[in-house]
């Protein structure tokens, strides 16, 4: 079991509870303030800063992680709600052999510009492909409807998801 003690420079509320989280296959036992969100626990306790704190209130999708197979907003998930669940963040998508096909296709197709929305979009797309290996353009559009991107205009993102879906079907 991975176990990390973490200190950060920001003044943090006092940890009162110990929660057990399974993130990207690793088990963590971590001290958190009871009122933390999953996003705060990931970013400030586990130092998994891939999931972004955008609006912090459910509008933008930058904090999207996958919980028990479903795309979920970690900024609205009380940390205790994630216990006994399987959490996957963008850090969990790549394997030891290399990036996830989605990550590779985002790179090849130029689907990320500033990149702030990208971790959330990758998680929404990965959850989609796990359930729907051959999605239509409309299904991709719908699956990413809760992920706002202010840079790209989405076209290259849709193309990258289609490219990754095709590669995953061959694998």
């Amino acid at each position, binding site marked *: 079991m991975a176990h990390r003690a973490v200190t950060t420079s920001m003044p943090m*509320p006092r940890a009162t509870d110990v929660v057990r989280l399974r993130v990207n296959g690793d088990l963590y036992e971590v001290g958190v303030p*009871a009122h933390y969100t999953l996003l705060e626990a990931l970013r400030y306790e586990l130092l998994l800063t891939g999931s972004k704190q955008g609006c912090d*209130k*459910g509008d933008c999708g930058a904090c999207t992680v996958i919980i028990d197979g479903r*795309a*979920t*907003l970690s900024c*609205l998930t009380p940390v205790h709600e994630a216990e006994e669940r399987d959490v996957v963040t963008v850090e969990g998508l790549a394997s030891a052999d290399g990036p996830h096909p989605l990550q590779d296709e985002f790179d090849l197709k130029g689907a990320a510009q500033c990149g702030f929305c990208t971790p959330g979009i990758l998680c929404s797309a990965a959850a989609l492909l796990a359930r729907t290996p051959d999605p239509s353009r409309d299904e991709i559009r719908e699956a990413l*409807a809760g992920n706002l991107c202010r840079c790209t205009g989405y076209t290259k993102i849709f193309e990258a998801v289609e490219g990754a879906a095709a590669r995953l079907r061959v694998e």
Partner: protein
Amino acid sequence: MLRLPEYRYHQPRALAEALSLLVEHQGDVMPVAGGTDLIPNMKHRLFEPGHLVALKRVEELKGIHEENGHLRLGATETLTDVAESRVVRGCFPALAEAAGHVAGPQLRNMATIGGNLCLETRCTYYNQTAFWRQALGYCLKKDGSICHVTKVGRKCVAAHSADTPPVLAVLDAVAVLEGPQGRREVPVGDFFVADGIANTRREPGELVTEIRVPLGPRTRRAAYAKLRQRNSIDFPLLTVAVSADMDRDLTVHELKGVVTGLGARPRELAGWSEIARGHVLDDDLIDALAERALAQCHPLENMIVDPEWRRAMVPVYIRKALRRLF
């Protein structure tokens, strides 16, 4: 970054335990289901309960199935599960559609049907950070003494903004509530009151445990239409639900319409059955119904869009919904 106020998080597994936690911490406790409404509101300091009772692990609140002539929807079933459920799609496609049009996909994966029924009313001057609200001297609904919408009024007119209740209402659904006083059933059509500060008949110690939708006559159809700024994620600016009992040739026996997104409660449109009964649902009848609806709907400046435009959209969306009945 929006910090949550401090609270203790309770995760009961049984309904009795959840109800007794609500009694034990009375006055300083709220139930939370998907949290997609309550957590942002707490981050905005609209609620600061010292205790949250989480409902997602309570066994009795789960499940979607047919039972004694109705469809039972457990309160914590997610909107994704409602929208994708084969039974719901088969029996009540308009309900599946309404659930599938709430917010965006991640939110629907978390949000529950019970939470949608109990959604807090919304207003431009209310759903803001504490800092923002303070700058304006707060408002009647929270921490202040005036209403910025009505200017003079002593009444809050924040808008009921949930998508599934109008559809549940036209389908004659019933909300089942359990609390310290026992169990009671309230038709969804009577569940709401015209008070933006507290717009439901739910008592603080009570939970919605399930919603029952009667599997009424097979001749009954329902439809739904929603106006919003961005179709990807936004709250409704106006939602219309209609249901009709019709013959094959579209002769109407019974017709119901409910609109919401305007005032503090969903409004059942008056006089519709009288106009429609015995007539064929054709373009002329649809126009008459739309006109009747317009006369009853007066959007306010409780949302960020122009109320005149929103009013003009009422007949447009009424027609849209009615045309979806055939």
